[in-house]
């Protein structure tokens, strides 16, 4: 092998190399303004005063704070987070079911043929779609930040923020699940004159109930993470506690809360998996 490669020198160089080099240079030129905009200054990481502040904070992470008083506070906050996610998802379902049923094309009577109020139903569907987009397009933490201003600090804002974003999200997925399943039974019912709700209950729910429930449980699991994040702007639960400890630069408390957060996410993962297995 050795003689082969030495006698045919051009063969061991990559014929595509010049092109790749040009590509790299061009992308670096494009990247440069982005780096400027993001104020990309890696040397800041090695500034002595920054290292000192961060070091002092991170050193406290070990050992985690395990005082009984503090653990009790964390436990209460954890239960609050769980309750926030559960209540939030329950309200989200209340928003999502009607929205999803309105949006879903498989339950659309106007799709079968233009009826008397064809334009009205089309208009209603557009409004519902727009509402859904706004609900889920704005991140939950923004909703939480706004709602904290209305309801004050505490879990109420968090629950409502989750209800709003997850309501939008669930309604989109519900309508997609309804459209992707077998739509013929519902269509047959609609064509022979049944109402939309009856067509849904008898034509679509039996075949899609498992998927709908399973997805809702999965979203509950995500809502736990979301309610911790929403807490960062003062919407209660573990997130609010973590934010307070962070602001006081109390590393021991932060590391305890982080460990509890990991355990909570792990627990939620397993519980949701268990429920979804039962549904199959």
């Amino acid at each position, binding site marked *: 092998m050795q003689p082969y490669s030495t006698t045919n020198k051009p063969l061991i160089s990559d014929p595509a190399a010049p092109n790749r080099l040009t590509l790299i240079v061009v992308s670096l030129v494009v990247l440069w303004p982005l780096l400027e905009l*993001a104020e990309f200054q890696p040397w800041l990481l090695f500034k002595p005063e920054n290292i000192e502040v961060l070091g002092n904070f991170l050193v406290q992470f070990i050992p985690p704070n395990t005082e009984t008083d503090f653990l009790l506070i964390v436990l209460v906050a954890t239960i609050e987070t769980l309750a926030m996610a559960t209540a939030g998802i329950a309200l989200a379902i209340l928003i999502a079911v009607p929205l999803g049923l309105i949006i879903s094309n498989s339950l659309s009577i106007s799709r079968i043929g233009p009826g008397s109020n064809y334009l009205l139903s089309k208009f209603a569907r557009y409004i519902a779609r727009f509402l859904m987009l706004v609900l889920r397009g704005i991140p939950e933490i923004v909703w939480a930040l706004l709602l904290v201003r209305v309801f004050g600090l505490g879990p109420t804002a968090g629950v409502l923020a989750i209800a709003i974003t997850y309501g939008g999200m669930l309604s989109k997925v519900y309508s997609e699940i309804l459209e992707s399943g077998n739509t013929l039974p519902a269509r047959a019912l609609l064509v022979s004159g049944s109402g939309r709700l009856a067509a849904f209950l008898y034509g679509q729910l039996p075949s899609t109930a498992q998927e709908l429930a399973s997805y809702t449980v999965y979203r509950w699991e995500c809502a736990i993470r979301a309610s911790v994040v929403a807490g960062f702007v003062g919407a209660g639960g573990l997130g609010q506690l973590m934010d307070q400890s962070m602001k006081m630069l109390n590393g021991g408390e932060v590391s305890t809360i982080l460990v509890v957060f990991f355990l909570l996410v792990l627990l939620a993962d397993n519980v949701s998996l268990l429920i979804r297995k039962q549904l199959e």
Partner: protein
Amino acid sequence: MSTLKHSMTAQKFCVKCLVILSIISGLIVWSFIYLGLNPIQFFSFFADSNIAPFITRFFSPDLSTPFLLRIGSGILETLSISAISTLLASIISLGLALPTAGRFGPYAKSISRFICNFLRSVPELVWATIMVLAVGLGPFAGTLALTIHTAGVLGRLFGETLENHSSINNTALINSGSGKVAAFLYGTLPGIYPQLLSYSLYRWEMNIRMATILGFVGAGGLGQMLFYELSLLREPKASTIIVAMLFLVMVVDAFSNKLRAAQTHSMG
């Protein structure tokens, strides 16, 4: 399949389902009671005049040109934070993926797996708070936070891709005398890079969303502007920023839907 079962035999009364359902509804009711929330109260609250002035103040967005220009630069900042962090993270992940896929033995594999899991389990907002301490307020903190979190996520995904990829080409190159690095670059990378690229693009989409909100802890972008304006109680400006966020998310959504449709279309 369940439809078929239904049509053949009527379902028997299911005690287990009833128990599970009552447990779940019990937990839901308990959650509301524990939090002291009364859903009916919300509606009376919204009906009260309390919220109306708040909303009306919000429905007069500030559309003056200088402010719109500032929002434009905020959007650009958000996009650069997400783009750079995704790019850096995918480069780091490529390095993490090799040990994660077990190329350097079982010890390195479990260590790098642990690193990936740790990096991605800590929420972005926590990383952002830590990075604000490390490099000060501003977009660079957000970039670092997203880079760290995304490196964990992509490291795992890249590692799995690498593990599932057949190593025939790689082995063939090594057996015919190529170096290890060259064998990876010419034998393995060409086979997996479309998958890596699609994972990175998907994470970029998520990072754009994240970059809009990381500013709440002072890590730059639109979020920092929103937090600032809301703290000064300037609702018209705040509502403009929220509309801009919504606009950004919608554009990204539409774009990625188009891209995904094109991708699945080309795959058949």
